[in-house]
């Protein structure tokens, strides 16, 4: 039997125990305290400010509602009069305004029965009254008032409730919002992000709308640290300390949405595929919403979304236009629309813009559903994740693990299929790849799973076919076969190189030799680029190489190198953006020293000063010679600071200054 339900609770904030929940609440504290402070400081003379929290799925709306519920209950003063009422997430049998008030009454009668023993029963007595629909709120209101209480209605998916109200009921609700102060609403909504959402209901104006944004790098780290149990904590701390770039990659893949972040992270820790099955289930749940999102777009926009989603990585307007065989101008206008609908987002790179799907979870859903069969498209997101989080050995270890567990019949078919595909495209040793594919296929066939037919071929099969073609002298066909496999393993790249050699296409051959080499030693390209940098030659070539390295894998070396060369190229703000997350490294770091020397030599004193002084990095203390070299150059403005310099530093400061002087010329453009 498969275990299917064990960890789903992790992603449903309402099902976690209270203690556990509170411990994990480490992000979005600002928003919580804003609302909570407002609630605490309200008195009878005020009409209550209502709120709606808007965010993508998994952004933390339900979590915030629960946090409010708990904290109100735990607050000595508030709990005396303020009663939180939180309906279950899928409560919506509520189809009319009266039903809403009846639900509230029922909740009161159930959960606060000492005080509201008969409130619903009393209301029921009036059910038959001709004017019941006009008066039902006043019945409720007067009971609540008599008891000296107030209500905090926490309503998830509030847009659904509002959408079901008739036009007249909407007017009634507006009246109630304006004139009654016995309750306050805090709602959550996903749909209000959707472009087809009907905003015309005038009472949305009566709410303070709070958008939940994606987590930034710091929040992501705090969040990851808070979610796991003790035994995993160490593992996470190690990751955060030793390879912060991994967390950053994870953040990018998930768009900084907390729940998606957790889910992918769990896959990293996952041994038996449960986390993966959970992910699939949650993707399923999102299907109606996402389907709606696509169906509501005109065909031209659908096509663009399809193109970008299938590509996973961001795309330039020109690239999209080329794929669709359309004019750039036309595509660009459509992209603007999609950006307005918040379906895509753009990032400026120089004069160009790169577009990608804004909600990464939607992109994952799209790939899984519409990616071509027997192609890496469907698991591209997982490949990226595995490549950035696992070393070659770890990837292979995972594969071996799966091979073992398949025989124990412990794993679900979908997990076996997707993980086999992803690991295989991520690049495995030939034998392991072959064995994994064979075992998976055998198992999937035995289980009668449709996935059996959808497994891509193993490197071994592909190589076999290619060699057969080669022997028949059909080298072109062999090359085509290898290219179409879209495999990135060193053996396939090596084979390609050899085929090109036979055709005497040396440039192509070199390229694939290099690729196959790069797989084994990622330092290769980085070294070329570092060589260019140290000699101060071939800036543009260095830029191209370092950029492509960075796009492939933004680990620390690639990132700092790219940032450094951007600086050389005087693309300042881009450079700051790229390196921003790496200043926290605790050990003295030659890259960081280099970065500041170059920055100062480019005359960017204030920026250098700003970064060195950021309290979170304490760089000023850690790189004293750099700091005082900078202050020496700025001494007219900061005459006092220079006096703080200890004598022992003088020599190294002098050295830095000399180097900066050299750099001015060496890296001039």
């Amino acid at each position: 039997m498969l275990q299917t339900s064990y960890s789903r609770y992790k992603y449903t904030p309402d099902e976690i125990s209270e203690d556990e929940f509170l411990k994990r609440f480490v992000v979005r504290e600002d928003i919580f305290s804003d609302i909570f402070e407002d609630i605490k400081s309200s008195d009878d003379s005020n009409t209550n400010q209502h709120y709606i929290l808007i965010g993508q799925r998994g952004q933390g709306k339900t979590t915030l509602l629960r946090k409010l519920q708990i904290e109100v209950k735990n607050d000595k003063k508030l709990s005396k009069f303020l009663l939180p009422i939180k309906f279950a997430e899928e409560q919506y049998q509520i189809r009319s305004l009266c039903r809403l008030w009846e639900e509230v009454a029922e909740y009161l009668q159930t959960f606060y029965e000492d005080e509201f023993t008969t409130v619903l029963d009393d209301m029921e007595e009036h059910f038959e009254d001709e004017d019941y629909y006009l008066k039902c709120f006043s019945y409720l209101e007067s009971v609540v008032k008599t008891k000296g209480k107030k209500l905090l209605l926490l309503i998830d998916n509030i847009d659904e409730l509002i959408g079901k109200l008739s036009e007249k009921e909407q007017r009634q609700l507006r009246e109630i919002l304006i004139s009654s102060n016995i309750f306050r609403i805090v709602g959550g909504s996903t749909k209000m992000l959707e472009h087809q959402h009907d905003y015309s209901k005038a009472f949305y104006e009566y709410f303070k709308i709070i958008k939940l944004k994606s987590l930034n790098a710091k929040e992501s780290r705090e969040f990851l640290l808070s979610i796991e149990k003790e035994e995993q904590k160490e593992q996470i701390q190690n990751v955060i300390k030793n390879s912060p770039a991994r967390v950053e990659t994870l953040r990018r893949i998930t768009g900084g949405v907390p729940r998606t972040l957790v889910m992918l992270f769990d896959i990293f820790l996952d041994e038996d595929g449960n986390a993966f099955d959970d992910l699939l289930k949650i993707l399923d749940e999102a299907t109606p919403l996402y389907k709606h999102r696509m169906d509501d777009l005109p065909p031209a926009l659908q096509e663009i979304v399809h193109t970008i989603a299938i590509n996973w990585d961001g795309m330039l307007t020109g690239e999209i236009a080329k794929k669709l065989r359309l004019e750039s101008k036309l595509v660009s206008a459509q992209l603007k629309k999609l950006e307005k609908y918040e379906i895509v987002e753009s990032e400026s790179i120089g004069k160009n813009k790169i577009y990608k799907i804004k909600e990464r979870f939607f992109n994952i859903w799209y790939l899984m559903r519409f990616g071509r069969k027997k192609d890496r498209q469907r698991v591209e997101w997982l490949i990226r994740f595995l490549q950035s989080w696992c070393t070659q050995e770890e990837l292979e270890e995972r594969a071996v693990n799966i091979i073992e567990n398949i025989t124990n019949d412990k794993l679900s078919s979908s997990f076996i299929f997707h993980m086999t595909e992803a690991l295989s495209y991520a690049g495995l040793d030939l034998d392991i790849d072959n064995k994994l594919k064979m075992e998976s296929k055998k198992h999937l066939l035995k289980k009668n799973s449709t996935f059996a037919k959808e497994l891509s071929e193993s490197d071994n099969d592909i190589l076999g076919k290619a060699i057969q073609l080669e022997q028949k002298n059909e080298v072109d066909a062999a090359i085509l076969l290898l290219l179409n496999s879209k495999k990135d393993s060193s053996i396939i790249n090596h084979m390609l190189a050899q085929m090109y050699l036979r055709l005497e296409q040396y440039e192509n051959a070199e390229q694939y030799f290099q690729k196959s080499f790069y797989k084994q030693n990622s330092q290769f390209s980085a070294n070329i680029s570092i060589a260019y940098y140290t000699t101060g030659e071939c800036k543009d070539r260095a830029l191209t190489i370092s950029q492509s390295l960075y796009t492939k894998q933004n680990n620390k070396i690639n990132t700092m190198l790219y940032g450094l060369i951007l600086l050389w190229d005087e693309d300042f703000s881009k450079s700051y953006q790229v390196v921003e997350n790496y200043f926290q490294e605790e050990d003295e770091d030659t890259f960081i020293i280099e970065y500041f020397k170059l920055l100062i030599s480019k005359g960017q004193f204030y920026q250098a000063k700003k970064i060195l002084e950021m309290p979170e990095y304490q760089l000023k203390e850690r790189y004293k010679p750099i700091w005082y070299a900078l202050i020496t150059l700025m001494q007219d403005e900061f005459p006092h600071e220079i006096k703080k310099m200890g004598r022992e530093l003088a020599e190294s400061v002098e050295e830095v200054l000399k180097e900066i002087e050299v750099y001015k010329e060496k890296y001039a453009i």
Partner: protein
Amino acid sequence: MKNCVGQVVRGDDFWDRTTELETIWDAIDSGSHILLVAPRRVGKTSIMHKIKDEPKEGYIVIYIDTESADNENEFWHKIFNAMQEEEFVNRLKSKSKKLCERVKNIRIKKVSASGVKFGDGQTLDYLAAFETLVKDLEIDKKLIIMVDEFAQTIENIIKYEDIKNANSLLKAHRALRQNQKVSEKVTFIYAGSIGLESVVSKINSIKIINDLNSIKVLPLSNSEAFKFVSQLCLSTKIELREEVIYHLLNKVEWLIPFYLQLLIQELKILSRENTESLSDASSIDIAIDKALEHRSYFESWHTKLKESFSKEEYLFAKEVLNIISENYTMESSAIINIAAKHSLDEDEAKDMIRTLVYDGYINNNENPKVYRYNSPILRQWWNKNVAN
């Protein structure tokens, strides 16, 4: 003072609009019935709540929102219900013992199309019932009945019933106002986010309301707005330099509290993300861009037009607003030109433009022949989301 966005502001959070309040109380003292005139979101409802929460000596205030009522019966239902509500009755106790006793004793059994049925079996028509109810008010006391969204009720009746019934309710109110016995004891204040005058003039009944004393609620003046913003900054703990505040006021131009509150909310979020970002004027521009992303706060400016006009009128109004959002101004001759395109005659077009002016979209204050948006923020939103 808290930064409330959108919701009615009461108590300490209310910004003292002394001039408006004085004008209104003067009018009440002089015995006239009042029509509060102002575009949506200027703060009428907040002013009414201020009057209710802190009335002058000798007055008892009742506030009713009637926008959900779509027939005469429901309207009266609301009035009578409000007068029997416990909170109101409790307040009556200290102010008017006699009326309080009366309200307590004469339980109203049923309000229906045939009139009001009292506990003692007597059925009176609405007016008589109302008169009976208020006649026991002490001689030195006066009841102020504020009817919010009254124009919406009239529009509902036109839409769901007919013009005749709408007129009947308007006439009933006029009769009440002209009934001396009632008028001595009751002051009516009507208000709403759509203009009563434009709704009533559409059904040619403007004379039924020409006895009302109309009082305009204006946006804040520059100096009021400056104080208002400073106060909000203080309470939300953000720091804005004086010239940055002036830049903000300049950008908002049409200084209604709602826009100022909205921007302060956005600035607060900005300040969290980057503490230095508020130091210069460009942060205001960013905050405005962010504020414009809240579709929910602006969309109703658009849908309202669709709801309250015929299709041709709507298309005309939309095109005019589109053009002004693009070119900043538009001459009346050009407007007439567009009217012809939508087969409206000059008078109809002028009526429409008057409504747009009344409802707070545009004005011709600087030059009677040239129209522009009241609010550059709305212009920007309209241009981005409706016109393009």
